[in-house]
């Protein structure tokens, strides 16, 4: 067979979203790839300029639909820096809990999608089943399964319902043995190792050259986790390890994500214990009522207090489940942010696609792209 271009996408089982991977192949060997993005470009940065600070949170959930709370957290940190507001401690712990549960949820979703890419059918169902338990927890205090709108500038919307922490512990106790089962299903199989070892190798120097972060960078042996390196929120209060592997291949990424879920469970146990012991306010005192109101007031009168805030630029970066996300919020004193710019980890990870795809087989593309964990929503924004 001579060389030819094939389009893997936008409707293709490999993509797990809406993007197009153009692949030049010779027989079954990949010669060149060209990711074509933008099929889900919804102009979130532009719409944010037209929205009030708290209204942007609505968009954040939809930016990355598998890690909505992490993106809320990202935006909130930047917005609070831009507006010079300090949230209460309990709110910070609640946000941390949200982010860690979201990390587990996102990684379970990744697991479900990834195993399908290598042809394992039933673990998809297992992953979705266990993810639903995490979503149930979210639902019990935010009211939604996926789009939460839980965090607010200056705190969080509401406190936990009674009995939540016990339920959370129950879910954590259920999850830990499940991780072992997942490992047995994947790592216990020789075929898995045959498929995934030494596949999609992206060395540490290549990662840094191409701006690749998150589990992909850590799978190459670089111990960089913003929660540890530059602790935001209250991550310096909790005790956990950074998951690292040194294969830089698909298996290593699998191991890193699995270990991250275990570490998240470890963090969550500490956070939940803290939340039990320390009741308190979840919204900063200095924030005017409209900022923390569960529903935006009707009409624009409520927004008049904006003038109290000085101009400023807020920058935040957090360790999102997919990697290192950054937000750059410019506050020009108006009721809307002047400019919001997000850095999506998936965007950078995908831009390096040529480096880790060329030279492998067509059949290797799904596992490699699965191990990258593509979330098109946050990539295209």
């Amino acid at each position, binding site marked *: 067979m001579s060389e030819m271009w094939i389009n893997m996408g936008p409707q293709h089982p490999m993509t797990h979203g809406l993007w197009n991977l153009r692949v030049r192949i010779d027989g079954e060997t990949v010669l060149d790839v060209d990711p074509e*993005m*933008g099929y889900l*470009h919804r*102009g979130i*940065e*532009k*719409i944010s*300029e*037209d929205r009030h600070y708290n209204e942007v949170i609505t968009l954040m959930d939809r930016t990355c639909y598998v890690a909505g709370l992490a993106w809320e957290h990202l935006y909130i940190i930047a917005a609070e*820096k831009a507006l010079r507001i300090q949230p209460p401690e309990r709110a910070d712990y609640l946000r941390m809990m949200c982010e860690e549960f979201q990390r587990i949820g996102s990684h379970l979703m990744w697991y479900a999608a990834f195993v399908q890419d290598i042809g394992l059918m039933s673990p998809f169902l297992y992953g979705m089943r266990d993810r639903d338990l995490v979503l149930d927890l979210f639902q019990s205090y935010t009211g939604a399964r996926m789009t939460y709108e839980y965090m607010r500038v200056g705190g969080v919307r509401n406190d936990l319902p009674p009995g939540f922490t016990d339920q959370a512990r129950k879910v954590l106790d259920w999850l830990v043995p499940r991780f072992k089962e997942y490992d047995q299903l994947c790592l216990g199989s020789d075929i898995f190792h045959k498929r995934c070892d030494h596949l999609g190798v992206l060395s540490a120097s290549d990662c*840094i*050259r*191409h*701006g*690749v*972060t998150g589990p992909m960078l850590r799978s190459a042996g*670089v111990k*960089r986790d913003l929660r540890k*390196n*530059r602790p935001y929120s209250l991550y310096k209060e909790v005790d956990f390890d950074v998951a690292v592997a040194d294969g830089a291949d698909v298996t290593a990424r699998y191991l890193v994500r699995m270990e991250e879920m275990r570490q998240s469970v470890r963090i969550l146990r500490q956070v939940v214990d803290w939340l039990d012991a320390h009741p308190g306010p979840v919204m900063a005192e200095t924030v005017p009522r409209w900022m923390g109101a569960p529903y935006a007031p009707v009409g624009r009168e409520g927004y008049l207090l904006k003038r109290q805030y000085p101009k400023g*630029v*807020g*920058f*935040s*970066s957090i360790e999102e489940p997919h990697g*290192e996300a*950054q937000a*750059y919020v*410019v506050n020009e004193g108006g009721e809307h942010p*002047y*400019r919001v*710019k997000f*850095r999506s980890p998936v*965007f*950078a990870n*995908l*831009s*390096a696609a040529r480096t880790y795809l060329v030279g492998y087989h067509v059949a290797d593309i799904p596992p490699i792209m699965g191990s990258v964990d593509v979330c098109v929503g946050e990539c*295209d*924004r």
Partner: protein
Amino acid sequence: MQPADLERALAPKLGAGLIGVEPFEGMAGRVRFHREAALDLFRTVREDLGFAHLSMVGGIDWVTHREVFYVVWSDDANQYLVLSTDLPAEDAHVESASGVWPSANWHERETWEMVDVTFDHHPDLRHLLVPDGYVFHPLLRSFKLHEPEELEVKSRHV
């Protein structure tokens, strides 16, 4: 690393190209420079100061002028740094950073199509997020979103 340290390290290499280094919350500082010194600055920041990782490139339309900012981090110093330059709105172009940091490639494509800033010597300046042939630059302040009510009225007439 403090803004003063940065200024001391950068000033001899860049000379007049460096406007100054401002403090920035949560970062090593914010380096403001003239676009003529862009490539020198990138090289110095990457090779001499060790900021090997470019996180993002973004553009802001300040109506009178446009700003392009680069966020870079260094693993050794465990620090972020913002590089920013102001470009005149009618002639917004700056040297591409993708020769120094390959990761700038897509970010610059996005900035080009969103804020209409041309990056000279960019290897592959195509549309990334909006369809090919799209003539608008959505993140300019002059580009207005339509109001929902407006659209409602329109569709009712259609």
